[in-house]
């Protein structure tokens, strides 16, 4: 079998005909679609202030971090990590339930990944 054979065979069409109810089925779907109200648009006008505030807050994070480092650099013993300096942060994190938050975040991540994997396999 050479290229000419393949060209000839593939160029010869064997046509199928749609089933008799195909056009009616399409028109029914189109009518149903036309009767469906358009989706409610996202309320950008109301969301803009919140989005802008969030963007400003995000943009401010680097500035806060840089300021904190600058302040620490001025204090004596900069660079040394001692238990005395870490302890207040650990206590604050424990009081805020950080371990539960971390556990919940990990479980959420695992369940999302597992469900995506299962859904991917089923289709």
């Amino acid at each position: 079998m050479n290229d000419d054979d393949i060209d000839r065979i593939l160029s010869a069409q064997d046509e199928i005909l749609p089933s008799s109810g195909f056009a009616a089925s399409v028109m029914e779907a189109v009518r149903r679609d036309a009767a469906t109200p358009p989706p409610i648009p996202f309320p950008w006008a109301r969301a803009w202030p919140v989005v802008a505030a969030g963007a400003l807050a995000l943009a401010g994070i680097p500035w806060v971090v840089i300021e904190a480092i600058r302040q620490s650099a001025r204090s004596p013993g900069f660079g040394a990590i001692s238990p005395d300096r870490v302890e207040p942060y650990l206590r604050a994190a424990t009081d805020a339930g950080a371990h539960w938050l971390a556990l919940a975040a990990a479980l959420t991540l695992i369940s999302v990944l597992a469900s995506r994997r299962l859904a991917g396999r089923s289709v």
Partner: protein
Amino acid sequence: MAGDQDRDDVRSVLAGDLGAFEGIVRRWQVPLVNLAYRFCGDRGRAEDMAQEAFLRAYRALGRWRGDAAFSTWLFALAGNLYRSELRRIPPRAIALDDLPEPTEPRSADPPLERDDRDRAVRRSVQALPAKYREAMILFYFHGMDVAAAARSLEVPEGTVKARLSRGRDILRRRLLPVFAAPEPKEAR
């Protein structure tokens, strides 16, 4: 002729006459279902895909500017939909074992043997990797030239030529064991 009818029907639909869309469906249902069938090789799924293509065409009708033929626009839309649909759910792979066994080279009924072989070759296109399959479907089954296929696939023409050549190579290699015994008249 069909172009004028398409234009009139589109105008009517956009003006609110939903029934005019049926003219478009009846005019293009055979080519659209066939194009889908070339992609997936399953009649029922081809009709589902073609129905979805018509539905999307209806929704996007206002975006057809009329500078290209309506059929070009419709087939580009359908082709994109079919390709993404098959990437989402690939067609059932056709194993070479499913292809018909060749009959004796000197069969009593050579035309039937040739029909089997030709059908097997066309079916085996569906077993090609997606990028070769898409190029071959548009070029051979949909009758597009290289330039049109390249535009539809959004790749350079050279890429389409390379994919067609590679697709033919794969087909030839895969089908060689099945059709090792050539018909005496066509053996070269």
